[in-house]
């Protein structure tokens, strides 16, 4: 059985673990550097990117995460997308910069601007009911990355080999298609 880690520094990690279980994979809660060994992939959940940045370096070093994400499959949602991407101008956040996409943090404003919307997936004909919570925006997609979900023509999910980043929260719905895509294309194919 595939073992997929969920970074559990802060945020919606339990919801991701539930979705992973529904897909017959074994979720592993990741809080320590040693938790990363033997994992087939990792999810960096939503939460606050400032909190995750602040706490990396305590029991799990930023470099451990970086080394893992360079080789293995990582799926970042919301704050996780910010961590994977580049170009965030906020000094309170440190990015891995491995996903070739420029991300703007908290781009829609405060919570009352949060929304749900059906987004278009490149890998499935049916739309996906996406939940955007104080969401980041993908401002620019570099040539290394490809767009795998759009809303009003704008990229909301991008993939680069074994890395996947979404501005929305597929873990907050019962629809497992996005996690399934991550497992089939990023984890088991190792990004091929």
């Amino acid at each position, binding site marked *: 059985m595939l073992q997929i880690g969920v970074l*559990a*520094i*802060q*945020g*919606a*990690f*339990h*919801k991701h673990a539930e979705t992973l279980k529904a897909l017959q994979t074994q979720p592993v809660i990741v*809080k320590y550097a040693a938790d990363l060994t033997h994992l087939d992939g990792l999810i960096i959940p*939503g*939460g*606050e990117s*400032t*909190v995750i940045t*602040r*706490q990396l370096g*305590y*029991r799990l070093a930023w470099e451990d995460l970086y080394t893992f994400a360079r080789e293995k499959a990582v799926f970042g949602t*919301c*704050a996780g997308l910010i961590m994977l991407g580049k170009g965030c101008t*906020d000094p*309170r956040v440190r990015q891995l910069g491995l996903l070739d996409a420029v991300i703007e*943090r*908290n781009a829609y*404003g*405060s*919570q*009352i*601007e*949060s*929304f*749900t*919307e059906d987004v278009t997936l490149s890998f499935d004909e049916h739309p996906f009911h996406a*939940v*955007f*919570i*104080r969401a980041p925006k993908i401002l620019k997609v570099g040539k290394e990355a490809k767009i795998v979900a759009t809303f009003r023509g704008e990229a909301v999910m991008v993939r680069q080999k074994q890395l996947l980043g979404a501005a929305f*929260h597929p873990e*907050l719905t019962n629809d497992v298609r996005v996690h399934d895509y991550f497992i089939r294309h990023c984890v088991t194919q190792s990004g091929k």
Partner: protein
Amino acid sequence: MEKSSYEVKVGLAEMLKGGVIMDVTNVDQAKIAEDAGAAAVMALERIPADIRAYGGIARMSNPEMILKIKEAVSIPVMAKCRIGHFAEAQILEELGIDFIDESEVLTPADEENHIWKHDFKAPFVCGCRDLGEALRRIGEGAAMMRTKGEAGTGDIVEAVRHMREVNRGIRRLQMMDKEELMAEAKRLGAPFSVVEIVAQKGQLPVPNFAAGGIATPADASLMMQLGAEAVFVGSGIFKSDDPSARAEAIVKAVTYYTDPAVLLEVSKGLKDAMLGKPAKGLPDDEQLAKRGW
């Protein structure tokens, strides 16, 4: 594009899990909280310990001061309105607050009715002492629950009592036959539809956090181990002798709440916690948890 659905409101509560929400009274404190790793801040003019000391009527904070804090930090900002004071809540929503706390820490505006929270675009958090109270607030539209505890005392005993009460109530529901649920809903004074969901799932339909009396990393860990999904720290941080270090220690204690080695390490370097006041000796009219029902 649908905004402000219940799903979106609960969604933000989900994102705060495993985090610490800190009470702050000015921009400097808000920055200290954010730097220490707070997942959100609660902007208020006086922290609960000072509300107790100061007396008078505790109302919604000055919007000017809340806005300054909102501009200073990038994390979600919450603010409190009085129980039943929907006009204060309307003002907070208008200024773009991320979460409204309909709080017993402020002087209640209505002793019978809470705000009908479904009508608002902003999500609400409310306090509870037991399962019935939690389910009434959820019925009114609360997107997050927290224990009431006894705010401003630095005494954890009431938060522990309230968390255990909620959990015991949930376990009772899980053991019941379908036939017994209606009578239990009546006993709890809770909406049947929500009772049914809790009986099926074995948990509240919204995140449940701890608040009221948390002063040390050990307090935070205790509440997390009792089932809290995040913690609010009010007076505990800025009434201590080392707010910044204590804030950071509590953040680590919440992430690593089951790891005694971490808890020892973060507890070691701290100066004195807030002096506090035993919740038990408080006269009736100073027991904030009794406000609301």
